């Protein structure tokens, strides 16, 4: 039996080609993902492990604010502790570090790197006067307020040479210290593309902490002392509840764990999309094997007639699948390694700096890839295999084999209807349940998708019949194409379903993303009347000088800071937002249910309705608050407003809050100009701030565009990933058409003989392809919009301004795409059909 099966595979090489490619692509996606994520996470782990080379024990402040009774205040480490730590038995030396944000501008005034990975720290010379972590490549270590050192990559990117003034900013104002030296480092942040600026320790302390305080102490052990032993010694000297010691190994392990956790998220996402592709591939495999079995009916019946058991027949089909799956998996694996390497290169070319490292290719990857390829293929071939076993031996004698009975379609339709109905009910039920409807909706969506898939053969007839008038315009080719497309409804359905799945996901995502984007725009324009928003590039606190400076600038009519401060209210953590009580009313357009901003000031505050409801407050309610400095105070509610995701929580006058703040800084400024937002006004503001690289000046459009950018990027990535599923679906269409052409070669030969020219034949195949693709497209887009709407209902319960936006433009693009898919998929089968040798075709059989 196995020899027969193997011969069959070889005999049908060409017809199995699309199946092999489909499985291969899926496997390549899976193995590519594994290779890529393994490689990247290995590289990051290596670089982070290197970063801990010089560290045996780290002392960090304990970040438990409740223990000190002062909200949000982390204790810092003192010079005294540093000296003690350096002298415990087994300690070779101790290094104190302070670090924070440091924006470096290049020569054009642009920020180097991203806001979040622009760091500054202190250069801590050891006994020999050098800091082992930062070997100087050029120049010397920074000394005094007016010198800094930069890591080599950053200096290189920004074009600074030793001796140049470096344009930079820590918390707002621009400073221009001299570049004293350039160093190299194993710091993980720098390896990943961030920038690092070093000051001498007193300057760094001045900037990031308080004189004599450190944010971290690193202790190096003597060569005979283990990290654990050193930690035990250090634990003895640590002040209780204020600091804790961790070994360097644990920190490295934790970071490695963090990296691999982060990677596993990416990996699961990518594998999810690979799963979609493979799932789509299943349809192609099942189609191909169904056809192969149908074509071999006589042969299989003969095998049965001469004594092969049903199980042997099924097994022979499955064995064919095994061979096909193995070949596809092996080629897919090879392609996957290429993809993994290519992806890393791609990331490098789009500017994301990835640490170097060898390509990681594990046995796990090999086994997963092979298993996935083989299992998927055999799973898909299982049903055709069972059908093959059902062929009666007598079929060997008769010329026609009974096709699938109508009864089985009745059963199929009933099952499909039940699934679809349950699915719709689940999704609709989910929309009424607000945030709790997620599971129900997910279940409903899966059921509906299955239901629609099961029902596609039934749906294909009316839907395709609906286009008959259009098809008639294309004469006899159009008419024949339409009829051919519904001739084998199961096959058409499986082919269209493959395309449907991809388009459902794509459309659903587009609907959701577009709607959320719109709601954010609305939020920005409706709730705020400020023209500009000013913040640090990395959204760290901004010096209060910035507001003072801008308030006096020409054309600025009103400003307010937004100062956030942690607080305890009735034992719960809340955030207080300090604003300018006089101007906030001019800068926002909030709906007040009770009271207004006018009453704000002193102990009178305003609060959003959700928070008010949580605490049972209304206008005039009094409550006790514990400020971040630990002092208690009484505040009174003077207004309740409708909050949104941009403005919410408790707002009070900044002057009430300031005395309790450890450091008075602004998170953000809002300001209004006399003439509204304009490029000139924005430039003027930027100029007023000295074209500072660290400060972001955004108008409303910038704010919503920044958010839109995130969405667009996300959406484009999803499109890219789903494109894979669409490509597999295209293979499916090609496969189905090739099968149709092959099966109908006699008809095609006859049509040619009685006078249909090659163009007519080509057009017929193309139209059939178009019909199938558009059918899948319409189903997919329809389902996608429905799912998008349903998920939107869930989002709406959390996002007050949510509004469904049906992306008609995009949808027509998708439909056009489905049409293009149809035309492209038909290229090769149509050519084949047109080239068919008429006589051979007519004589066949």
């Amino acid at each position: 039996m196995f020899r027969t099966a193997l011969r069959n595979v070889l005999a049908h090489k060409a017809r199995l080609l699309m199946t092999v490619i489909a499985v291969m692509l899926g496997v390549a996606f899976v193995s590519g993902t594994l290779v890529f994520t393994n490689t990247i996470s290995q590289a990051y782990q290596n670089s982070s492990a290197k970063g801990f080379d010089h560290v045996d024990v780290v002392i960090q402040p304990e970040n438990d604010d409740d223990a000190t009774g002062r909200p949000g205040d982390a204790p810092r480490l003192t010079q005294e502790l540093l000296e003690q730590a350096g002298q415990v038995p087994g300690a070779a030396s101790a290094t104190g570090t302070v670090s924070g944000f440091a924006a470096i501008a290049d020569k054009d005034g642009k920020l180097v790197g991203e806001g979040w990975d622009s760091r500054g720290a202190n250069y801590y010379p050891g006994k020999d006067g050098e800091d082992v972590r930062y070997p100087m490549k050029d120049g010397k270590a920074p000394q005094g307020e007016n010198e800094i050192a930069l890591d080599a990559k950053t200096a290189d990117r920004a074009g600074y040479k030793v001796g140049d003034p470096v344009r930079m900013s820590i918390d707002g104002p621009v400073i221009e210290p001299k570049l004293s030296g350039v160093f190299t480092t194993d710091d993980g942040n720098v390896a990943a593309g961030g920038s690092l600026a070093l000051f001498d320790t007193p300057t760094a302390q001045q900037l990031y902490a308080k004189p004599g305080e450190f944010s971290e102490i690193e202790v190096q052990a003597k060569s005979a002392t283990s990290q654990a032993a050193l930690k035990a010694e250090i634990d003895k000297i640590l002040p209780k509840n204020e600091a804790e010691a961790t070994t360097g190994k644990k920190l490295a392990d934790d970071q490695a764990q963090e990296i691999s956790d982060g990677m596993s998220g990416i990996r699961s996402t990518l594998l999810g999309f690979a799963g979609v592709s493979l799932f789509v591939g299943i349809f192609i495999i099942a189609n191909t094997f169904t056809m192969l079995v149908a074509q071999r009916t006589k042969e299989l019946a003969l095998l049965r007639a001469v004594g092969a058991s049903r199980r042997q027949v099924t097994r022979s089909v499955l064995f064919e699948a095994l061979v096909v799956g193995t070949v596809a998996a092996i080629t897919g694996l090879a392609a996957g390694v290429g993809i993994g390497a290519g992806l890393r290169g791609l990331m490098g070319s789009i500017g994301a700096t990835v640490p170097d490292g060898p390509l990681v290719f594990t046995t796990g990857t090999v086994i997963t890839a092979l298993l996935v390829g083989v299992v998927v293929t055999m799973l898909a071939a299982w049903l055709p295999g069972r059908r093959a076993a059902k062929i009666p031996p007598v079929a060997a004698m008769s010329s026609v084999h009974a096709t699938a009975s109508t009864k089985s379609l009745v059963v199929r339709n009933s099952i499909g209807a039940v699934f679809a109905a349950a699915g719709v009910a689940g999704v609709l039920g989910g929309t009424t349940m607000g945030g709790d409807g997620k599971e129900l909706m997910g279940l409903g969506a899966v059921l509906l998708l299955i239901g629609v898939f099961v029902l596609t053969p039934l749906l294909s007839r009316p839907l395709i019949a609906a286009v008959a008038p259009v098809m008639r315009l294309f004469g006899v080719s159009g008419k024949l194409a339409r009829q051919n497309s519904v001739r084998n409804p199961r096959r058409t359905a499986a082919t269209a379903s493959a395309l449907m799945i991809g388009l459902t996901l794509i459309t659903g995502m587009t609907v959701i993303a577009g709607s959320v984007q719109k709601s954010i725009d609305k939020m920005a324009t409706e709730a705020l009347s400020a023209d500009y928003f000013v913040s640090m590039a990395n959204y760290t606190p901004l010096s209060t000088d910035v507001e003072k400076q801008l308030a006096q600038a020409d054309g600025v009519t009103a400003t307010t800071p937004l100062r956030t401060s942690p607080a305890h209210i009735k034992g719960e953590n809340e955030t207080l937002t300090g604003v300018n009580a006089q101007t906030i009313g001019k800068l926002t357009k909030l709906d007040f249910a009770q009271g207004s901003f006018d009453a704000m000031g002193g102990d009178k505050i305003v609060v959003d309705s959700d928070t008010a409801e949580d605490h049972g407050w209304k206008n005039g309610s009094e409550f006790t608050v514990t400020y971040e400095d630990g002092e208690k105070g009484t505040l009174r509610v003077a207004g309740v407003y409708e909050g949104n995701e941009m403005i919410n929580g408790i707002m009070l006058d900044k002057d009430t809050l300031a005395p309790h703040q450890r450091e008075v800084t602004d998170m953000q400024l809002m300001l209004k100009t006399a003439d509204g937002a304009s490029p000139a006004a924005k430039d003027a503001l930027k100029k007023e701030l000295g074209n500072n690289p660290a400060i972001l000046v955004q108008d409303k459009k910038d704010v919503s565009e920044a958010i839109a950018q995130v969405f667009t990027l996300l959406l484009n990535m999803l499109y890219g990933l789903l494109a894979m599923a669409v490509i597999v679906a295209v293979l499916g269409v090609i496969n189905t058409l090739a099968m149709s052409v092959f099966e109908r070669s006699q008809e095609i030969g006859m049509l040619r003989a009685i006078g249909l020219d090659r163009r007519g034949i080509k057009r017929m195949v193309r139209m059939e392809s178009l019909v199938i693709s558009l059918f899948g497209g319409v189903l997919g887009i329809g389902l996608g919009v429905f799912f998008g709407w349903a998920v939107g209902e869930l989002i709406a319960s959390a996002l007050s301004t949510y509004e469904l936006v049906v992306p008609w433009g995009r949808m027509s693009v998708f439909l056009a795409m489905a049409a293009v898919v149809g035309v492209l998929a038909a290229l090769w089968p149509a050519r084949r059909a047109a080239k068919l040798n008429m006589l051979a075709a007519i004589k066949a059989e």
Partner: protein
Amino acid sequence: MTTTPLAHQATAVAARATDLSKVYGQGETQVVALDQVTVDFEQARLTAIMGPSGSGKSTLMHCVAGLDSFSSGSVRIGDTELGSLKDKQLTKLRRDKIGFIFQAFNLLPTLTAAENITLPMDIAGRKPDKQWMAQVIEMVGLSGRLSHRPSELSGGQQQRVAVARALASKPDIIFGDEPTGNLDSRSGAEVLGFLRNSVRELGQTVVMVTHDPVAAAYADRVVFLADGRIVDELREPTADGVLDRMKRFDAKGRTS
């Protein structure tokens, strides 16, 4: 029985092959399917081409019908020389001037009987001649079954649809490739009767390839092929007469 020279014809010629040769392969493996065949097919006549298998009878028909290319010589349908035509022109010629009947019926299963019959006109984008259609359908006796699909018709009925399809566009000449090969003798007789009627009553020209002497007996004239050459012909044949000739070729074939 007399063997009249092929060139001597009383009636007009619908199709003519002159020194027609068809050679497959090259060198040692070369096979000559047709060897300088010259033959006329007269208008309003039913001509049968006979010969043992491998004699080249189907090849001759395919070449004359514009379905296959030939190596040398010339083929004319009416005034059109086929040798100089491109595929596109050949297709058009087949569509407008030629009708076909195949052994395996070759109907489109998705179309009804009526749609199958008008298919050549649909392809050409022409409206069928209603009166002619009625006449043809009446003749083949399909009036009650026009809306049936091929799968709902018997083999004989399917071939009648095929005959009607071949006649529908009033072609200059109809070629049949073993038109009764897949039919039982009664259905076969019916189909042959229609073909003969279409010649006698409707004035059509029919050329058919067959290896069945009974079928050949319906023809006005039988042309015998052996080893790619015309070896004999018979006018007003009877089944016995044809069988008799065939036996002679077979015997010759065996002894040679």
